[in-house]
């Protein structure tokens, strides 16, 4: 099924919950928008409808848009039996992004959502085990946010180290001084 047909089917079922089918000019994979309130139902239909059968949740990506104070979640779906794919976007407020977890529908959502929670700070309501995945549990902030500033230290360890290029002049000077002394000795 083409993405447009999938979209039409969703609109027929959910009305204005699903909207803005977008394709062409730079958008290489057409997508549509879903309102977060009924995301779980829309996703369940996508998974279970005999004409859709999206049994593979390929990826979840959160994109931060500070200018419009939004966080967009992008869901990529694929169907093994029907060999078609579909992209959905959910727009959330940037201050407290909160959306239903899909872990009950696809097991893969467990880690995919934890990753986005960890790096982007999106809270997935109903997730069985929403903890940081990649960063330490006590890390501050969500690094993939556009306004994230890396802390200078983590538990007393510096997070940056001087560039070797900055150290080079001192290193050179030291070497030259050494060479000069060895030459002096030879004489």
């Amino acid at each position: 099924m083409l993405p447009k047909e999938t979209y039409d089917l969703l609109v027929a079922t959910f009305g204005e919950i699903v909207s803005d089918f977008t394709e062409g000019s730079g958008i290489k994979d057409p997508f549509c928008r879903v309102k977060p309130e009924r995301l779980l139902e829309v996703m369940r239909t996508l998974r279970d409808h005999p004409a859709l059968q999206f049994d593979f949740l390929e990826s979840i990506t959160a994109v931060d848009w500070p200018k419009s104070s939004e966080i967009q979640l992008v869901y990529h779906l694929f169907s093994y039996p029907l060999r078609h794919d579909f992209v959905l976007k959910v727009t959330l407020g940037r201050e407290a992004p909160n959306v239903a977890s899909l872990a009950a529908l696809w097991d893969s959502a467990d880690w995919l959502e934890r990753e986005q929670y960890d790096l982007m700070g999106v809270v997935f309501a109903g997730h069985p085990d929403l903890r940081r995945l990649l960063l330490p549990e006590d890390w501050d902030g969500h690094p993939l946010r556009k306004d994230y500033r890396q802390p200078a230290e983590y538990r007393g360890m510096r997070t940056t180290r001087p560039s070797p290029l900055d150290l080079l002049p001192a290193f050179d000077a030291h070497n030259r001084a050494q060479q000069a002394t060895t030459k002096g000795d030879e004489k």
Partner: protein
Amino acid sequence: MSEIVLATPAGEEMILNMGPHHPSTHGVLRFIVRTDGEVMSEAKPDVGYLHRAIEKICEGMTYEAFMPYTDRIDYVAAMPANHCWALTVEKLVGAPVPPRAEYLRIITDELNRISSHHIMLGAHAMDLGAVTVFPWLLREREMVNDLLEELCGARLTYNYHRIGGVAVDMPAGWPDKVMRFVDRHGPILDELDRLISGNEIFVKRNRGVAVVTAAEARSYGMVGPNARASGVDYDLRRDAPYGLYAKVLAGLEQKGTPFEVAVGRDALGVTGDCWNRFYVRVEECRQSLKLVREALAQIQETPAGEFWTPPKKIRPKGEALGRVEAARGWMSCYVVATGEKTPYRAHFRTGSFTSMAVVRAKSRGLMVADLVALIASLDVIAPEIDR
């Protein structure tokens, strides 16, 4: 993390920490194992030790400059990761790729797949106590490394792909050397079967261990050889061919030696068990040899020297999802571009990431020693999980 360590085990259970430096955990991985004697009630993976924030780094540099970083996503099979990035950006920009480059991409991807599977097959056997296989396969892997080194100068992190092509053309005499390797390697794989695949102890150690059904594999988002071992008959190279794979596959079909997607079956092992995950990769090596042979035959018809058409300006606007069949399965790269020199957001979904998530569910009721078999058979690579 802290929550797990502090939890009081029930009854006779104890909590065992495995890693993060256990040698059989394939990079820096850690498992928190709850066990009653030898039988685990759960093994929780704790990942992130190799997190380098590659997606954040990507936002700070140009599309071209990010290429060497993709090597570090999966350093055992860097070529397909290169390919994934190049493919996605080319899709975004609409950049054409000369046929010679497409063939070189196929040849290098497949050679790299073979050398990556060498590591997996050897490590899997070694983790279960058969030490011979690993150095024996490393010898073969060295040959692939030599070939790739001669082509692009690097043995591990190739940085070979470019937006719109590849970095360099084949050196003189290189195709013959590749053919020599391909001719040699077929019999080696048969020897591997006699050495380990059909070995009684090895089969007993893997048969029926940690069986993942096809439905579970799809739900957990397992991809590539791991999903195919469970009977998910899907391979991007055949079912959604990118580059010139369709042409190479057609060429093989014509010659009467069609490309066959290796799928797990009830033979020495049970569909979806550790043995099938092992053997699917042996079969994949055989198929990759076919692809290399055919691509090498077809590349002779392309003009030498036309290996790269760099796009004039890479300032795309829009978004795209690129997919390649990497050594650890279907790798997706999603890029959002806003017309700047740098990507606005890039996200990689890799095979190891989703495979690792299955460990917790599959570890229930497994022996501690079998956890090692499970991890080895999933062929997870820590940098690919953590990025």
